[in-house]
């Protein structure tokens, strides 16, 4: 498969009154043509910051991307692009769907025009043609009565319809990469399933590569080809879907999987949760960031950051438990089965 996006040593800090928050700490990963890559992790682990940085959407006043960072798309470093070149990539080559469809659409602009806008910017067509195309796009994403609805404003749409409109906007120019930042978090469960199914179908039709940012492992199980687990601004484990669900290596990944409620669970039994809170990224710990909350923490974990251990061609993990001197553990039971019944 062809590499379409290559991220190297991405480091992003935020300058705040309290100090410098190290939101993303030296991560590298690649995206391949036509695949769905999921980035999972809890709130504040740097998922959204990473995804926004690919389109250069971080606030320039506070966000600082390290000079050694590279985001290579189409042979050029996105981080170094200026004005026109950047504009060409945004919306045309790489598109994005945001978390909250309620606030992501312009309230004073007709939805049809909002979809047509990116077409007008990136292709040489007339306003009329663009609007026609926009209606087609809205039909494609399953908006009922698209001709009529295109003339309406976002406030006349339901949440699910707005997210469909967002998808239409994002896919209008048939981008090579779609970044979906928690696309279903703000929607209720039945609509979630519909939206995810829609994204998957369109992805197959258009052969778009997707970066799916989410904390919902159920969605990941049903959709992702590859999964990256982020914690405290770092990628701590990565692998293809089956590896991550059937043979996870990092205690944080175990904990995440155990936190998913199961249908088979007895009604009175307590749900599993990870104790403690993620570290303060103003002062990230010296050793492993998860050490404080880890059930298997060893003295070395607090001292030195773990190095990446290659498990297979596709799977790798950053954890001291992989060291040859570490005690051999039995992985917690009950991890398997998460993937069943969750796929779409």
């Amino acid at each position: 498969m062809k590499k379409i996006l290559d991220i190297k040593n991405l480091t992003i800090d935020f300058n705040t009154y309290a100090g410098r928050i190290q939101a993303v700490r030296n991560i590298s990963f690649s995206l391949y043509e036509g695949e769905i890559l999921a980035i999972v992790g809890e709130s504040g682990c740097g998922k959204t910051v990473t995804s926004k940085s690919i389109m250069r959407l971080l606030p320039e006043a506070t966000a600082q991307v390290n000079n050694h960072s590279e985001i290579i798309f189409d042979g050029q470093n996105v981080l170094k692009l200026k004005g026109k070149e950047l504009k060409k990539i945004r919306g045309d080559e790489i598109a994005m769907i945001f978390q909250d469809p309620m606030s992501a659409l312009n309230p004073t602009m007709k939805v049809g025009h909002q979809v047509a806008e990116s077409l007008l910017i990136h292709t040489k067509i007339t306003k009329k043609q663009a609007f026609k195309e926009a209606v087609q796009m809205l039909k494609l994403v399953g908006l009922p009565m698209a001709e009529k609805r295109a003339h309406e404003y976002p406030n006349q749409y339901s949440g699910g319809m707005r997210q469909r409109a967002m998808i239409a906007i994002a896919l209008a120019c048939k981008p090579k990469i779609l970044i979906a930042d928690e696309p279903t978090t703000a929607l209720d469960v039945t609509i979630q399933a519909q939206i995810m199914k829609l994204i998957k179908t369109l992805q197959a039709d258009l052969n778009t590569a997707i970066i799916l940012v989410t904390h919902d492992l159920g969605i990941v199980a049903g959709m992702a080809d590859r999964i990256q687990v982020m914690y405290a601004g770092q990628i701590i484990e990565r692998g293809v879907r089956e590896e991550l669900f059937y043979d996870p290596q990092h205690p944080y990944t175990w904990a995440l999987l155990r936190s998913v409620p199961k249908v088979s669970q007895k009604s009175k039994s307590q749900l599993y949760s990870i104790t403690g809170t993620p570290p303060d990224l103003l002062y990230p710990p010296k050793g492993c960031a998860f050490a404080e909350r880890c059930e298997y923490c060893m003295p070395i974990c607090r001292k030195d950051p773990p190095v990446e251990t290659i498990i297979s061609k596709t799977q790798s993990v950053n954890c001291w438990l992989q060291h040859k001197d570490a005690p051999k553990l039995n992985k917690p039971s009950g991890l398997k089965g998460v993937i069943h019944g969750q796929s779409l």
Partner: protein
Amino acid sequence: MSKYMLKRLFSMFLTLFVVITIVFFLIRMVPGDPLASMARNLPEQVKANFYAEYGLDKPLITQYFIYMKHLLHGDFGESLVYLGQPIKEIILRAIPPSMVINIHALLWGVTTGIGLGILAAYKRGKWPDHLVMFIAILGVSIPSFVLATALQYLFSVQLNWLPTIGWTSEPGMKQFKYSIMPTIALSFGIIAVYSRYMRASVLDVLNQDYILTAKAKGVSGFSLAYKHVLRNSFIPAITILGPQIAGIIVGSFVIESIFGIPGFGQVYVSAITNRDFTQILGQTVIINALYIFSLFVVDIVYGLVDPRIRVFNK
């Protein structure tokens, strides 16, 4: 739509009615009467004749009904001080000077204020922002009459460029010269208010998710500002525009008095000192009708800008 309009119209008239009633009784409770300002030591019989002539000898409630009856026919009555002069004529004479000054001040103030506000928001934290906010704070905190006096001292007394006070009803260069200082004095406050409103509003919109969506589409520069930022930022500014449009005709009491402009405001102030009951009432009715109507217009303009608060569909 028509149902909404009817409801709205009804409540507009009800408000107006209540205001007129309150003002009618309120000014009669204030000590003093129109005779006091003209001649103090009149024989009792002359006074009685005067009161009888204008119906002021009747019980207050009867006077109220007589006044309302005439008002319904569009008759504001006669001035009690300027004998034989209908209120309608006095008001019509006073409106044009007020309009000239206030239209100038509003156009200049609103456009400059909005422009500066947008500039400040886009240059947040940099020197243009600090400068605009400094101007805004000055504009809010310096009363217009202080500024007016300072202008008179600088441009009339020291530099001798402009006439200190006065007015001419003929449009032209002379009138323009008379209008410059009052316009500046009035617009300074307007600039201050609008620049602050616009700055806050633009900053708020710039932080919205849909601006990120637009950027992610590749929208940038002018079309981002025009299509996505500004239209959404204008809503708060429209709220304060309504009463100010009414103010075009109503004028400014203080500024007109300082610059000796025979406008609506100055006439109103002298009517109050003279206890010219009919004139106070007449002008109050006009002012209120204008404010109420301007708020109604604002509600409609809102809908044109923001579909979420559109009160009726096209």
